[in-house]
């Protein structure tokens, strides 16, 4: 069954079909959830190899619990975000000390459109480096809220805290990011956008 034919089914329906042995559902879920889990792990960890390991591990856990999935209790993505973030935080706590804000690459002297692209890329990299410097929970909350675009109640479910605690974490995270990024905005072409 082609992937398009599965678009009408939500993640939970596909997971139930997976639990029933449907290979097409397995492929559709992989294609749908794999990139999302990987992107979240990548943003949390800032390291491709580690992000791939974590994403693979999180999905393996999902396949294992699929037969016992309790319908209507939680969204599949909420469960996955929670598992992924916990695996990431375990790794962060083990390694401590990653890339530094000063690792942002210098802008190359290119044509204007290429420079624009480089600026966008550099901003994303600068943000990633600044995120890496945040405490785990602040980083998780900021990524989920401002990059993944989840709502505060959804983030609360993932992080097992109330919406007000989510607000507090994101506010503190943003203040820390501002402090980390302020000194770099000019060289990243920020002033050109004003």
């Amino acid at each position, binding site marked *: 069954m082609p992937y398009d034919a*599965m678009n009408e*089914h939500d993640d939970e*329906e*596909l997971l*139930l*079909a*997976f*639990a*029933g*042995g*449907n*290979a*097409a*559902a*397995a*492929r559709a*879920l*992989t*294609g749908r959830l*794999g*990139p999302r889990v*990987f*992107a979240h792990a*990548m*943003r949390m960890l800032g390291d*491709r190899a580690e*992000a*791939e390991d974590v*994403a*693979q591990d999180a*999905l*393996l856990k999902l*396949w*294992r619990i*699929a*037969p016992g999935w*309790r*319908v*209507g*209790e939680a969204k599949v993505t909420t469960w996955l975000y929670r598992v992924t973030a916990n695996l990431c935080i375990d790794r962060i706590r083990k390694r401590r000390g990653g890339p530094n804000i000063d690792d942002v690459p210098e802008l190359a002297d290119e044509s204007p459109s290429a420079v624009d692209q480089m600026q*966008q*890329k550099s*901003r*994303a990299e*600068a*943000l*990633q480096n600044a995120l890496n410097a945040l405490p785990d929970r602040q980083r998780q909350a900021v990524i989920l809220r*401002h*990059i993944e*675009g989840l709502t505060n109640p959804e983030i609360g479910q993932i992080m097992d805290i109330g919406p007000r605690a989510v607000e507090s974490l994101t506010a503190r995270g*943003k203040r820390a*990011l*501002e*402090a980390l*990024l*302020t000194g770099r*905005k000019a060289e990243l072409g*920020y002033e050109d*956008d*004003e």
Partner: protein
Amino acid sequence: MSDERKTDLTGDLGLDAFFSAARDDTPMPSGDFMARIEADALAALPAKSQQAPVSIPLWRQVLVAIGGVPGAAGLAAACVAGIWIGVAPPQSLSEIWSQSAGLEAYEVDPLSGFDLAMLEG
């Protein structure tokens, strides 16, 4: 940089440019990784049925309609409470019921339908 300029740069708008750049620069997984996780999924596929169709089972539709597991739990609790009150009504409820006899003075007979049914056998 003036203080005013610095305040402007550290405002929400400034961070939004970074968040926007990060959203546009979503990390993409490699083809190898996608192949690996698909192989994992197929290897973990339960083998109890060959090709379970992707359809919403009736029990799940009912469960979702009544609000999922919490809804079902509430419904079950209400049923148990109803049976319990029917089998062994609390004393206070009986007292209230006996007082309702006074309603006849207002030409209201709350048991008329029930009495009629009993008379018809």
